[in-house]
């Protein structure tokens, strides 16, 4: 008797963990929490602080999305992932959206069944090396030991680059950026290679950043962007337009400080009015209310503010905007209009 009772209880417990998958938007709203897949720790992009609070560039985009969808940017659960586990976490439903320095590629889009929403950081793969080695070009790296994160596009780029240039190297595989820093500082490898933004973050974390340099060669295109599961277009629309709104807000001059003011009444610029819901109802098209973009921007500011606060020149990472400047400022950051 007791056995059957226990079995019944166990079965009941198991059942409660299974919830039917309706639209992700409805799931998120019913749950009251957005599950955002981030890295286990890349300084400036996503890392927990002393109190276990997550912060960083990617984290702010997650929070802005939560603010738009749920009305509260703190209602985010961060799901830490390694380069290897990230897609599995997303595809198995552990996460609703992936913001983890992920390169947009064709095979990921088509074969791994993801939907990419756009690009939030244009990056390229570079090399970090000790100045004392006296190397000035990636073409001189023949025979070097290279620390490389497994399960990333950089791993494949690296193999191709050395092969094409007829050079040999020793790959030292690592799982996370933190491991990369440990191995590189212990001098297990001569060179650390990953996206240039990650290299800046790594260099900042080293004991003496001035003893290290990033080589001028950028060997690949790494457009980093958020992704969701394929097959839920409604949810893809919501998240894509939150990203676009944050990028557009910069060119339209809407900031964290003045967004409330702009949203209070319709102004002169129809683009701003449409985005902030003072004219028409763009939010209804993606299943949200009129104020969706207001909340997203109010949480951490527009793209420029998020950039400056987490990875910009005044932070330990000290990254320049470069090609990530808005198109009006000579960069290539260009978002589709909200219309």
């Amino acid at each position, binding site marked *: 008797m007791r056995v059957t009772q226990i079995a019944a209880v166990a079965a009941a417990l198991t059942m409660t963990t299974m919830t039917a998958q309706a639209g992700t938007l409805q799931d998120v709203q019913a749950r009251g929490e957005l599950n955002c897949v981030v890295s286990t720790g890349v300084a400036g992009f996503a890392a927990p602080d002393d109190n276990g609070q997550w912060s960083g560039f990617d984290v702010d985009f997650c929070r802005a999305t939560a603010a738009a969808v749920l009305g509260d940017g703190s209602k985010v659960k961060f799901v830490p992932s390694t380069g290897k586990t990230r897609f599995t976490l997303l595809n198995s439903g552990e996460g609703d959206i992936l913001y983890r320095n992920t390169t947009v590629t064709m095979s990921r889009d088509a*074969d791994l069944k993801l939907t990419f929403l756009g690009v939030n950081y244009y990056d390229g793969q570079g090399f970090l090396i000790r100045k004392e080695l006296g190397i000035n070009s990636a073409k001189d790296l023949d025979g070097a*030991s290279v620390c490389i994160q497994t399960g990333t596009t950089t791993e494949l780029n690296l*193999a191709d680059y050395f092969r094409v240039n007829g050079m040999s190297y020793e*790959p030292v595989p690592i*799982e996370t950026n933190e491991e990369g820093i440990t191995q590189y500082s212990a001098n297990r490898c001569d060179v650390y290679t990953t996206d240039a933004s990650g290299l800046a973050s790594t260099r900042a974390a080293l004991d003496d950043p001035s003893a290290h340099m990033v080589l001028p060669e950028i060997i690949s295109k790494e457009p980093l962007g958020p992704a969701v599961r394929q*097959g839920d277009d409604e949810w893809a629309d919501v998240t894509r337009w939150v990203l676009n709104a944050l990028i557009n807000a910069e060119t339209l001059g809407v900031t964290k400080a003045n967004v409330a003011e702009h949203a209070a009444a319709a102004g002169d610029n129809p683009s701003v009015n449409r985005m902030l819901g003072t004219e028409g109802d763009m939010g209804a098209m993606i299943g949200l209310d009129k104020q969706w973009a207001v909340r997203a921007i109010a949480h951490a500011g527009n793209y420029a503010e998020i950039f400056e606060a987490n990875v910009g020149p005044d932070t330990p990472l000290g990254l320049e905007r470069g090609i990530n400047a808005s198109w009006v400022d000579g960069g290539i950051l260009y978002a589709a209009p909200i219309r």
Partner: protein
Amino acid sequence: MESVEQKRNIISTLWNDKEKRAVIIQIFSIAGLFALVWFMIGNAISNLDALGKGFSFDFLFQPASYDINQHLISYTSRDTHLRATIIGIMNTAMIAVAGIILATVVGFTLGVLRLSKNFLINRIVYIYIEYIRNVPVLLHILLVHGVVVHSLPNPKAAMTFNDSFFLTKRGFFMPSPDFESAMTVVWIALAIGIAFTFWFRRYAKRVQDETGKIFPVFLISFGAVVIFPVLVYFLAGSPITWEIPVLKGFNFKGGMVVRPEFLALWLALSLYTAAFIAEIVRAGIIAVSHGQTEAAYALGLRPGRTTQLIVIPQALRVIVPPLTSQYLNLTKNSSLAIAIGYMDIVATIGGISLNQTGREMECMIIVLALYLIFSLSISSVMNWYNKRIKLVER
């Protein structure tokens, strides 16, 4: 009404008859199992369909596109996933074999030292064993790897022996042999030596059984297996040339190399398993009763012969079965190589290949099958050995 009653009776007689009940239970469990398997396969098919993935091993023949830093046979990033898998298998086999040898040597030594009457040694070994056994093996691997990487020198300041062996943070570089054609003669000599030893051992045993005459078996075997081939080697004009590693640019080139990841994993796994083996050996030796040793002395056997002929064979009977499971554990624990980036089965096919191709199902099936094969082969070898040394009961 009556028929219902009867039916109930039939059921209860069926249920109360032990044999029939057994048949019913078995039929139900087979049905249940099949239903479960059917259910899971059905789900897998519809899930894979929904993702548009399909199930095929074709990806194994596509280029792997990634590099591996330690390979016994040649490998480049243009080779297939299949070849990467084979490299992974070889690396796992290498760590398992090397680990088992070192763990056995260290384990037996520690086990004997643990029984030493010397108080200090006894305590040190005890503390060491307790520390090793009570800390997870993953931590040992990470710690040893940290120590190895930190304490080894950079290539430019390499520790060197005889200017042909170099120990650096990039690995242990050794000269690699290059065999000339005359080497065949040496191989033949070696084969003859081994064959002779097998025959001679049997012959010596027969002579001893019949006449009691004892040959210096060890010396003669040593001569046949080692000295004879070495003599032939020099007579043939030393037909091996050695390629000596040379420091060029960043790193040593040429020769053979063992990466620090291998060294760290090898040390950590061997030392971990050795602590368990030490306890097994200790228990085995204690299990041989003192009367056996005394009886051997009474028969006039010297202490060395006593250990060799009386104590060890009996202790082995107690030691071998648990030793087998330690060997299996070591092999399975080698899968933790992934934590420090040693490219074994899990890191190649179960790691990078899986991740770059998105073929979770196929890759995991291959990994599980490979480990099952490894485990089965080790346990069958050890079972064979166990049968050989078992007490012959009449």
